[in-house]
């Protein structure tokens, strides 16, 4: 047996108490994180049920109005063509919204099922941008928004920028960014889209001058069903799926998305996508490679 002096004993006790305290602190810290995650999960669950109850508002109501409008058109006389045009415009707007929301719902469902894969092809970036902006033409017109591409009006967009990646996924990424920008811009605002190729990556940047996002919300906006203004009087439609789909798609294509925004200063989303390295030919297994560990 070792004989300990009183001093040694006290020191040893001190050391152990300190260790205990450290462990306790660590435990408290971890508990805090756990509580946070727990809250987040129950929020996620609540948002899911919110989503399901919202479906009637967001999907069934537009269908009802489309049916009613088309019925009125069928019954209207030739003389009232001016009215018919405005009704067709309403039908277009409703179906456009539905189509876009379905695209997001199905993309999210496929992503959650793990069934989505990149479909790589050579894409015409300018054509894609033109397509997306064209599809939002009427939505932007409603709010008198001006869209600039690389500081030029849309009509002046150059062509001839090719990039190897997934056409449909980039299209949905851009459509979601633009949809948000249109949604959150004030009337007569300006939306600036910039695109360029740099170090073999495609950089898309979209700036709006709307209400902006406060820094504490920058993380949660990429969560599913997350809408910052989810109150009953929320003016903005949608399910809060768009940004979570964008995030998952940029992940899938090996890219990154970042956000610069302050309340009242608008928001700038920047998506950086690396060019896809050809096909998956690098994965072909050669005879020699089928051996187990080479070591």
């Amino acid at each position, binding site marked *: 047996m070792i004989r300990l002096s009183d001093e040694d004993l006290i020191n040893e006790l001190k050391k152990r108490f300190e260790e205990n305290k450290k462990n306790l602190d660590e435990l408290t810290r971890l508990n805090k994180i756990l509580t946070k995650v727990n809250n987040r999960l129950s929020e996620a669950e609540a948002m899911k049920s919110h989503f399901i109850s919202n479906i009637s508002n967001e999907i069934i109501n537009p269908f009802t109005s489309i049916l009613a409008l088309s019925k009125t058109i069928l019954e209207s006389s030739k003389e009232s063509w001016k009215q018919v045009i405005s009704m067709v415009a309403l039908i277009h707007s409703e179906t456009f919204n539905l189509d876009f929301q379905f695209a997001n719902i199905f993309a*999210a469902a496929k992503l959650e099922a793990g069934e989505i894969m990149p479909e790589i092809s050579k894409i015409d970036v300018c054509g894609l941008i033109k397509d997306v902006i064209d599809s939002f033409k009427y939505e932007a017109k409603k709010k008198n928004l001006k869209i600039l591409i690389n500081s030029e009006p849309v009509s002046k967009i150059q062509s001839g920028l090719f990039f190897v990646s997934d056409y449909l996924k980039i299209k949905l990424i851009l459509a979601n960014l633009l949809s948000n920008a249109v949604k959150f811009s004030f009337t007569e605002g300006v939306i600036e889209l910039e695109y360029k190729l740099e170090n073999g990556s495609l950089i898309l940047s979209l700036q709006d001058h709307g209400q902006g996002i406060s820094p504490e919300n920058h993380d949660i906006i990429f969560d599913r069903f997350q809408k910052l203004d989810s109150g009953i009087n929320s003016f903005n439609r949608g399910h809060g799926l768009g940004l979570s789909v964008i995030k998952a798609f940029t992940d899938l294509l090996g890219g990154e998305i970042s956000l610069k925004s302050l309340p009242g200063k608008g928001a700038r989303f920047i998506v950086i996508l690396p060019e896809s390295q050809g096909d998956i030919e690098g994965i072909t297994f050669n005879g020699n490679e089928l051996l*187990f560990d080479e070591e």
Partner: protein
Amino acid sequence: MNQILPGNIHFLYPSTIFASHEEWNITTILGSCVAVCFWDPIIKAGAMNHYMLPLWNGQGLASPKYGNIAIKKSVEKMIQIGCRIENIKAKVFGGAEVLNSKNTQFNIGDRNVEIARIVLDELGIPIVSSSTGGKRGRKILFNTATGDVKHKLIKPPEPSEILNNLPPTAILYKNNE
């Protein structure tokens, strides 16, 4: 010369799941990610996932990017294609510590492997073989008809190689900051 494999080849992307009762060769490349291969010897069907992080914490979509979700969804898919849960066997691969982190306690690879053991145990699915951990990535080839998994360790790149082959996004990100 490429070896001719029976059945088709499917390259499994991260965060995805593939399941089939026909003969497929599912292949993927793993670093700190984990792939769990499921096989039913009775109806000769298999499934494989490839997840990157252990647990979904409410962030983003509840996709098979996360182990707890990927494993449960893969088993659901096996059951959908006609397997019985009591017949399913699992093999676990990956979870290497590819990036040299000093903080071994929070090694993502180990945590990815750990979650596979916990969730599979919960589901009562036995792990019949595994190759996990270490410092080297793995190439996996899983035959859904025979349940065979071939795997090869990948040579770890030199640090200079990593620096020279940084994805362009990494470089840009640095410049922006």
